[in-house]
């Protein structure tokens, strides 16, 4: 019989990713049943109440909650001691730089910086961004839930002050060789990227590196920059910076399909850059968009990266599967399936990867009836995002899932749970995964899945196909090469890119229908 206890630290704040990391480490080191460390927001309190924890009246958003379930009181107290210790020591090692309580307090120290990185809850992000812009700093706003009106205001102010506003909802960046937020440490080279799509930009950068070249800068704009209300302000400014940058020889523009007039306007501006080739991928667009422009079109992230390498070095890169190789893999795998194994399930953390795959499936297998949690023209919407139906692809980085816990590039639990749920479904034949590495994401986002994949394959007596692509750089701390090898050893088919995963998955969809 285990015991439960809730500890409340009044008026204490730490961000959700830090708290999740503390809870994970304490859970692992103490071996207790459950450790949750969260701010006392109404949503968090409701989840904890659902787990049986109780709180005193008046517990609220400004309080930090530690909820522990352990085999006895002693184990519970030991775990709590470790949580407190980790909370007290988080971020106290300030020997590498100064620490302040507000941007105003940071004063001249902050003004001396080049860039302000903001990852606050959305309702507070715009106010801090405005202060930073007024200090003359470029800003990188990782936060989502910032209104379009605020975004427009910040970007107009950025124009006035001649600073770059990356975001809101900007996931990755690479400036001065430094990976920002959840970006990868891609090696330096001649390719500059401006992107309204985080995982899309990271994929382009990593494939450029895999193809033997490198990236001068990756400037994120936030996913709504090409909305008609914003008009591509940050993409135009980012492009201008790269056009003036002597180390950038080729420019790549990356976005999901956006407002037609804004895309045309961006392409018009790109046409004026005479001394550098510009390649553009607007996922889901057609040839016609590019007909009146000099810009080189690409229709997948991989193609954009390879076009950029070709433009920069003159080198064609042999990349990915041949059709014969795909046929052979599909023949080998489908021969193992049991009666009734017929569905594909994609469990993604990268939003643009989900989009790229959906577009490709929609085009190559239009009649398969794919489901997705997102509202998209490329699939039917799932009634319940937590329950797959037929062939399903879920974007677990979407708000359907991030309302309850940190994004899956930080917190693996929800995605692992979904993976196991799909493995339990005897009709599932193929599972499609993506992984994203970098210094700002989970320190090991792959190994727990490698273990889960090995278990799944053993459970299904080998009759399950798992396809994965890792979007990361060899310079990332996760040791991508080793992690990929371990995935292969566990029986996973590791592809060179999300596009290759999608091509392969597409062939399975055709074979299964």
């Amino acid at each position, binding site marked *: 019989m285990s015991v439960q206890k809730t500890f409340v630290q009044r*008026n204490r704040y*730490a*961000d959700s*990713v*830090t708290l999740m*990391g503390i809870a994970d480490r304490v859970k692992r080191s103490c071996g207790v049943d459950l450790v949750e460390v969260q701010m006392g927001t109404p949503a968090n309190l409701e989840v904890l109440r659902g787990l049986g924890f109780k709180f005193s009246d008046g517990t*609220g*958003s*400004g309080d930090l909650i530690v909820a522990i379930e352990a085999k006895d009181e002693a184990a519970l107290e030991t775990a709590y001691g470790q949580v407190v210790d980790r909370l007290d020591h*988080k*971020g106290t090692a*300030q020997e*590498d*730089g*100064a*620490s*302040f*309580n*507000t*941007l105003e*307090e*940071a004063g001249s*120290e*902050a003004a*001396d*910086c*080049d*860039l*302000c*990185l*903001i*990852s*606050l809850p959305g309702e*507070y992000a715009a106010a*801090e961004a405005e202060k930073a812009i007024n200090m003359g700093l*470029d800003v990188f706003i*990782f*936060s989502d839930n910032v209104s379009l009106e605020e975004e427009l205001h910040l970007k107009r102010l950025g124009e006035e002050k001649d600073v*770059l506003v990356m975001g809101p909802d900007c996931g990755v960046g690479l*400036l*001065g*060789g*430094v*990976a*920002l*937020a959840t970006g990868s*440490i891609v090696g330096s080279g001649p390719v500059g990227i401006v992107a309204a799509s985080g995982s899309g930009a990271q994929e382009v950068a990593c494939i450029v590196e895999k193809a033997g070249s490198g990236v*001068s*800068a990756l400037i994120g704009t936030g996913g709504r920059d090409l909305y008609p209300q914003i008009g591509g302000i940050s993409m135009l400014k980012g492009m201008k*910076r*790269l056009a*003036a*940058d002597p*180390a*950038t020889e080729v420019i790549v523009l990356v976005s999901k399909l956006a407002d037609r007039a804004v895309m045309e306007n961006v392409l018009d501006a790109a046409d004026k850059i005479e001394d550098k080739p510009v390649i553009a991928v607007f996922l889901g667009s057609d040839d016609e968009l590019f007909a009146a422009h000099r810009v080189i079109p690409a229709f997948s992230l991989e193609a954009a990266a390879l076009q950029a390498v070709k433009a920069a070095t003159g080198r064609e890169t042999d990349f990915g599967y041949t059709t014969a190789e795909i046929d052979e893999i599909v023949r080998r795998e489908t021969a193992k399936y049991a009666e009734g194994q017929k569905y594909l399930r994609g469990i993604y953390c990268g939003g643009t990867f989900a989009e790229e795959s959906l577009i490709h499936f929609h085009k190559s297998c239009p009649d398969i009836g794919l489901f997705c949690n997102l509202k998209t023209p490329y699939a039917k919407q799932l009634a319940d995002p937590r329950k797959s139906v037929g062939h399903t692809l879920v974007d677990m980085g979407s708000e359907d899932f991030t309302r309850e816990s940190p994004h899956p590039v*930080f917190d693996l639990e929800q995605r692992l749970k979904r993976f196991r749920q799909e493995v339990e479904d005897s009709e599932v034949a193929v599972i499609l995964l993506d992984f994203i590495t*970098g*210094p*700002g994401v989970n320190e090991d986002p792959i190994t727990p899945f490698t273990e889960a994949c090995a278990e799944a394959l053993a459970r299904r007596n080998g009759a399950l196909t798992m396809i994965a692509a890792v979007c990361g750089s060899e310079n990332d*701390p996760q040791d991508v090469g080793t992690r990929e090898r371990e995935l292969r050893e566990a029986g996973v088919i590791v592809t060179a890119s999300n596009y290759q995963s999608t091509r392969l998955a597409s062939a399975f969809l055709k074979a299964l229908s």
Partner: protein
Amino acid sequence: MSDMKTAHCTPPKVVHKPLKVVNIGLQSFTESLRSQGVQVVQVNWRPPVNRDPEIDTLLEDLL
């Protein structure tokens, strides 16, 4: 002409120079930047205290 020349000679901002970053929010981003040798000024932001509107009214009356 001199203005154009000056503009042309100005290096583009934040594309290549070593970065110095002020981070407001996720502590893990500060750790990531420092692990890459970047100088970081950390702002230990916390949400504003939610004040009770009744107390605000009482304070206004008193003051």
